[in-house]
C-alpha cells in the first residue's frame, strides 16, 4: 500500500498537531483509491477532537484528550459529504501522538478498519516530529505504509 501526499498536506497535519498540543489532533484524509491499491490524498479535513463525548459511543475509558481522540460518526459523515462533492472518498484518518512515537497503539488497532490509511504524527514538546502511515491487514494487524511525498501542491 502506498499513500501519495504533498508537502503542503503534511505541513497542514503537522501544524494541526502542534496547534492542539498537548491534546491530540485528528482529521480525515480525503482523496482517491487508485485501481492498483495506491491512495492519493487530495485534501486534509481537520476535525475537532470530541473524545470527551466518547462515552456516548461506548468508547470512554477514563483517558483524556492528551491520549485519545474521537471523530464522531456525524463528523465522519460531514467529511464524507465534503469528499463526495469533489468526487473523492474518505481514504483514511490522521491524528497526533503528543510526546509519544508515531506508532499505532493497541487502542488504535482495536478501532481500525482495513484499507484506510492511519497517519500518525509524533509531536514532541510541541514540535511535530516523525510522521508515519499504517494500514490494517486481514488479520487486523497494522502494517507500515509507504508515504510517497510529492512537491506538487
Amino acid at each position: 500500500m502506498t499513500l501519495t501526499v504533498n508537502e503542503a498536506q503534511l505541513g497542514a497535519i503537522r501544524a494541526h498537531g502542534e496547534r492542539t498540543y498537548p491534546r491530540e489532533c485528528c482529521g480525515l484524509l480525503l482523496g482517491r483509491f487508485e485501481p492498483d491499491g495506491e491512495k492519493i490524498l487530495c485534501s486534509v479535513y481537520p476535525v475537532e477532537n470530541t473524545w470527551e463525548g466518547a462515552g456516548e459511543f461506548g468508547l470512554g475509558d477514563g483517558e483524556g484528550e492528551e491520549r485519545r481522540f474521537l471523530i464522531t460518526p456525524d463528523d465522519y459523515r460531514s467529511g464524507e459529504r465534503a469528499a463526495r462533492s469533489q468526487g473523492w472518498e474518505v481514504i483514511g484518518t490522521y491524528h497526533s501522538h503528543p510526546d509519544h512515537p508515531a506508532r499505532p497503539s493497541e487502542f488504535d488497532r482495536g478501532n481500525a478498519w482495513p484499507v484506510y490509511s492511519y497517519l500518525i504524527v509524533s509531536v514532541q514538546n510541541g514540535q511535530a516530529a516523525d510522521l508515519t502511515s499504517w494500514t490494517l491487514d486481514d488479520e487486523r494487524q497494522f502494517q507500515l505504509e509507504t508515504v510517497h511525498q510529492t512537491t506538487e501542491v
Partner: protein
Amino acid sequence: MAVKVLIPAPLRRYTGDQESLELEGGSVGEILDDLTGRYSELKKHLYGEDGKLRNFVNVYVNDEDIRHLQQQGTAVQPTDVISIVPSIAGGL
C-alpha cells in the same frame, strides 16, 4: 424484503467491490446477519470477539443512528437506506 445497504469503501473488498447491496431482513439485526452470512470475512471487522458490534461501528437507517432508535431491533422498510459509519477513535 430487500433493503439497500451502503458499504463503506474499506469494506468493499469483502463484497466484490459493490458499493451497495440489497439485503434481506425486517430489522437492522436481520439485515446485518444477512450481510455477514453472505460475506463472512466482513464479520471480524464489524463484530468483536464478544459477538457484539464493535463500539466504533455505527449503523444508520436513513439519517438516524440506530442507537437512538431500537438498536439492532430497529424495523426497516424497503424504502430505507442503511449506512455503516465508523466513528474514528484512537490514541496513545
